[in-house]
């Protein structure tokens, strides 16, 4: 009741202030009237009665004022009044307002954009039911310490069947595959999964039904997008047949919008839960996801997995001696790779915001110097500490809020640019968008910057001594050494922070340059790459595929402009590839604990020549290396060194678990390549001929060395391949583009940090310019006197520039010290560059000195044009 009255009375008074005034006036008037009439009744004249009433009850206006100032709404009214005053002040100083707002808009905009990405990718829960209970199973090697993000079928089946902490475990694999529809085929991400997949993710279909174990190899579920694109609607897709790797699958269900695990899958093919004949405890054919039982912690589940790993170790010492099944939260598995990059970006924009704050603080300080008189008068009239500081803080708050709004408006296009630049590997891209959290973050930032940037000016306002301030004529410019030192300190801080940014940008740019200039072990130019997906399931299928590819290769060789053609499973930077342990014959007893590890590739004859990988020893594969002839292999130099030392490897025996355990004879040695990215060290690779491993014919890249621009041959190549087999799904790219893509993360980082460093530089320049311009303006009188006494113009200019250079040097010194600490954090993102890179260090330092001196040029020039007569007369 009383709260309600408080609220309604207050609101009514706020809404109708004149009615309220009238009420109070009427009541007070009535009071005095009554008092007077009583006094008149007591025999006083009208005038005397008025005087007596006034003597007794006081001044009417004071009474009204007193009654009027009651109530919470009054505080609100005072505040809005002050806010209006601050707004008027800002409008009167447009240069200050616009500069400060834009500075903050840059800072808050950059932060909002990056935070949008950080929030959506790292902070928001995964968009799956029970997201916090989803886990990924990996295989950890206790001997080498490295972890394979895959599992073998039998191991995962044991986890599924023998652990209690997991509610469901699902095995899946897949990748980009050709999907044949009635009249065309599409290249898309296909995931082959067992029926548990749906239990793990708790998905319900948007139409139709999910596949069950009984549907294995016969049914598929598709994404909402895929159904719409290819059949028009979800309902229309039900019952349709698609072919994946030649196998017909009936679409039983369509998933709800937004589900696309893993990596934006569009088609999920039903696979059997049963062990297939290809499964062995040495074949890492699957990825596995699991759902923890509710209430079970990851640590507890891991403990159970450890126990299971121990049992498997005993039961299958051959294969499981060094294996440990490990799990990590799905969230971490998905976003772990980008976390450091995003955190780095976050830290960087934090630094930008700091620089922006320093700039605004500086602007505020200059403003508060100018309003010393106003503040002095306020204090002289007895304003409290809060009353003196409040206008400064309110102005700051207004500026920050405007900056915040402008920043959010800036962030919208910035996010779009960011996403366009982002490497394809950035997970959860489709979830990135502005939302309430982000807006709250931006608002919080605005308030924070308001507080940070107004603390110093507000404190200074408090310390203004009215007597001094009113006496001292500001334009005579002897005002406080302390103020000048404070401004210089801010500029130094700003330059130090900018130096750190420039240093970071330098390191990352240097890394990208290094990577681009790296010898990859093969020639990337003029190389057309074709993803050719040819279905193969049986040995006969494989043989046919191999024959078909041989036919395609010879057809392609006849295309004008094509120099060489080959096929390869395990192309560097490519989407297929395999790796694992191998054994070498005649090397004495095999030490299982120290099995050597290599990348595995399956190549057609002529591959090395096509790629420009040098043949160091022995011979290439030839048409004579057939399925029924003795198995052969080519090894890379690193493998030769790793397993054969200085002895001649040609003729030696080697064995690996790719698809058969036959011993292979080493027939040649080739140069090493960087397999996954230019950042990687060249490693050991084991090449096997395609004809002897026909199953891998369906994971082949066709590479063509061309004499012309590679992509101009696209149509001719497509025609030739379709002529041999129209069902082969094709995708074209160039080796240059693939290498480029593999460096996308490094490039993204370098580009972003460089642009942030650019923003920082701009802000630092503004800061130096502001300080110099202000101090020159304040010293006009002093400079005038010096000029009157015959000082050289050049000496005065030098004085200003030297001051700027001195500030820059102090800033750089502080920046170097900071960099020594901070650049350690990016060590893992560098390639071929040490964190204390002299090139980056010197260029960052030069850049900053140059920036500072440039920023000081205009004020310096202005100083030399001070007319002594005018300056001395100025008052």
């Amino acid at each position: 009741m009383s709260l309600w009255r408080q609220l309604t009375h207050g609101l009514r008074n706020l809404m109708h202030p004149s009615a309220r005034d009238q009420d109070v006036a009427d009541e007070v008037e009535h009071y005095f009237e009554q008092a007077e009439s009583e006094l008149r009744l007591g025999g006083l004249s009208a005038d005397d009665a008025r005087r007596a009433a006034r003597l007794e009850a006081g001044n009417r206006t004071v009474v009204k004022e007193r009654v009027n100032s009651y109530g919470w709404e009054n505080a609100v009214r005072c505040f809005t009044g002050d806010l209006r005053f601050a707004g008027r002040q800002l409008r009167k100083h447009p240069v200050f307002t616009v500069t400060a707002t834009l500075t903050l808009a840059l800072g808050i905009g950059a932060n909002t954009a990056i935070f949008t990405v950080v929030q959506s990718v790292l902070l928001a829960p995964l968009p799956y039911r029970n997201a916090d209970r989803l886990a990924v199973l990996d295989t950890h090697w206790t001997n080498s310490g490295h972890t394979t993000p895959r599992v073998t079928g039998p191991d995962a089946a044991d986890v599924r069947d023998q652990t209690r902490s997991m509610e469901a475990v699902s095995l899946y694999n897949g990748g980009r595959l050709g999907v044949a529809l009635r009249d065309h085929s599409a290249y898309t991400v296909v995931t082959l999964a067992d029926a548990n997949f749906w239990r793990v993710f708790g998905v319900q279909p948007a139409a139709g039904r999910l596949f069950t174990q009984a549907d294995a190899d016969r049914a598929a579920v598709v994404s909402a997008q895929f159904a719409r694109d290819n059949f028009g609607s979800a309902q229309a897709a039900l019952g349709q047949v698609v072919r994946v790797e030649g196998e017909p699958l009936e679409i039983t269900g369509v998933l709800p919008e937004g589900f696309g695990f893993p990596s934006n899958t569009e088609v999920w093919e039903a696979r059997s839960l049963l062990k297939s004949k290809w499964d062995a405890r040495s074949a890492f054919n699957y990825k596995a996801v699991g759902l923890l039982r509710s209430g079970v912690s990851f640590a507890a589940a891991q403990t159970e997995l450890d126990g299971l790993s121990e049992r498997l170790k005993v039961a299958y010492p051959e294969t499981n001696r060094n294996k440990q099944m490990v799990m990590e939260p799905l969230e971490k598995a998905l976003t772990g790779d980008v976390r450091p990059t995003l955190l780095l970006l976050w830290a960087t924009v934090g630094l930008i915001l700091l620089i922006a704050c320093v700039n605004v603080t500086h602007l505020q300080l200059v403003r508060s110097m100018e309003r010393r008189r106003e503040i002095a008068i306020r204090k002289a009239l007895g304003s409290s500490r809060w009353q003196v500081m409040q206008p400064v803080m309110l102005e700051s708050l207004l500026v920050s809020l405007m900056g915040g709004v402008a920043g959010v408006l800036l962030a919208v296009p910035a996010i779009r640019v960011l996403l366009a630049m982002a490497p394809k590997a950035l997970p959860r891209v489709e979830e990135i968008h502005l939302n309430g959290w982000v807006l709250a973050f931006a608002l919080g930032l605005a308030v924070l910057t308001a507080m940070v940037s107004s603390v110093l000016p507000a404190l200074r306002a408090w310390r203004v001594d009215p007597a001094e301030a009113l006496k001292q004529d500001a334009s005579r410019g002897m005002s406080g050494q302390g103020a000048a030192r404070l401004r210089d300190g801010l500029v130094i801080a700003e330059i130090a922070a900018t130096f750190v940014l420039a240093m970071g940008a330098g390191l990352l740019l240097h890394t990208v340059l290094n990577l681009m200039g790296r010898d990859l072990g093969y020639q990337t130019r003029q190389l057309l790459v074709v993803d050719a997906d040819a279905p193969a399931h049986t040995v006969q299928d494989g043989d046919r595929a191999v024959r078909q590819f041989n036919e395609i290769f010879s057809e392609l060789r006849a295309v004008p402009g094509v120099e060489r053609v080959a096929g390869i499973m395990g192309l560097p930077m490519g989407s297929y590839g395999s790796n694992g342990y191998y054994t070498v014959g005649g090397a004495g007893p095999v030490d299982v604990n120290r099995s050597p590890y290599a990348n595995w590739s399956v190549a057609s004859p002529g591959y090395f020549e096509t790629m420009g990988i040098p043949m160091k020893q022995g011979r290439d594969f030839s048409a004579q290396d057939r399925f029924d002839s003795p198995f052969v292999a080519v090894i890379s130099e690193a493998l030769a060194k790793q397993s054969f030392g200085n002895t001649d490897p040609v003729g030696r025996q080697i064995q690996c678990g790719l698809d058969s355990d036959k011993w292979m004879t080493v027939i040649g040695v080739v140069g090493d390549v960087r397999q996954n990215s230019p950042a990687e060290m060249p490693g050991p690779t084991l090449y096997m001929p395609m004809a002897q491993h026909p199953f891998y014919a369906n994971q082949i890249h066709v590479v063509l060395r061309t004499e012309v621009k590679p992509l101009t041959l696209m149509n001719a190549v497509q025609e030739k391949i379709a002529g041999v087999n129209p069902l082969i799904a094709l995708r074209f790219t160039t080796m240059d583009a693939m290498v480029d893509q593999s460096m996308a993360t490094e490039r993204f980082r370098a580009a972003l940090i460089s642009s942030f460093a650019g923003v920082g530089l701009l802000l630092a320049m503004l800061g130096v310019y502001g300080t110099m311009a202000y101090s020159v303006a304040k010293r006009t009188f002093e400079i005038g006197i010096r000029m009157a006494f015959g000082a050289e113009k050049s000496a005065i200019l030098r004085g200003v520039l030297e001051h700027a250079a001195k500030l820059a040097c102090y800033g750089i010194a502080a920046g170097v010290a900071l960099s020594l600490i901070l650049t350690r954090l990016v060590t893992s993102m560098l390639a071929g560059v040490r964190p204390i890179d002299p090139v980056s260090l010197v260029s960052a330092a030069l850049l900053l000195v140059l920036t500072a001196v440039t920023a000081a040029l205009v004020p310096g020039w202005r100083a030399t044009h001070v007319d002594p007569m005018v300056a001395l007369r100025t008052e």
Partner: protein
Amino acid sequence: MDDPNTDVIQGTLDLLVLKTLSLGPLHGFGIARRVEQVSGGVFKVNPGSLLTALERLERAGWLDAEWRQTENSRRAKFYALTGAGKKQLAVETADWTRRSGAIARLLETEG
């Protein structure tokens, strides 16, 4: 020459107003006058404090206010005790009796 102190004892204005209004609705000056008369001139109420207190008591829900026309067609605000106001009066009266009794006892033993 010192005037005798006619200030209302701190914290008792509410009690005085509530008690005065328990006899029937009054306007601001009427309340002030009655407090002065009944107290025999010991307490004089300042209009600024009184009108503010009336606003406060009204918002607390202890008083209802009503505008009436006076004979010379002025607007006058009349205040009346609400049910909650009556309860509050009882509470404050009891409280005051307890405290003034205590003070009286203290003064007696001192004497």
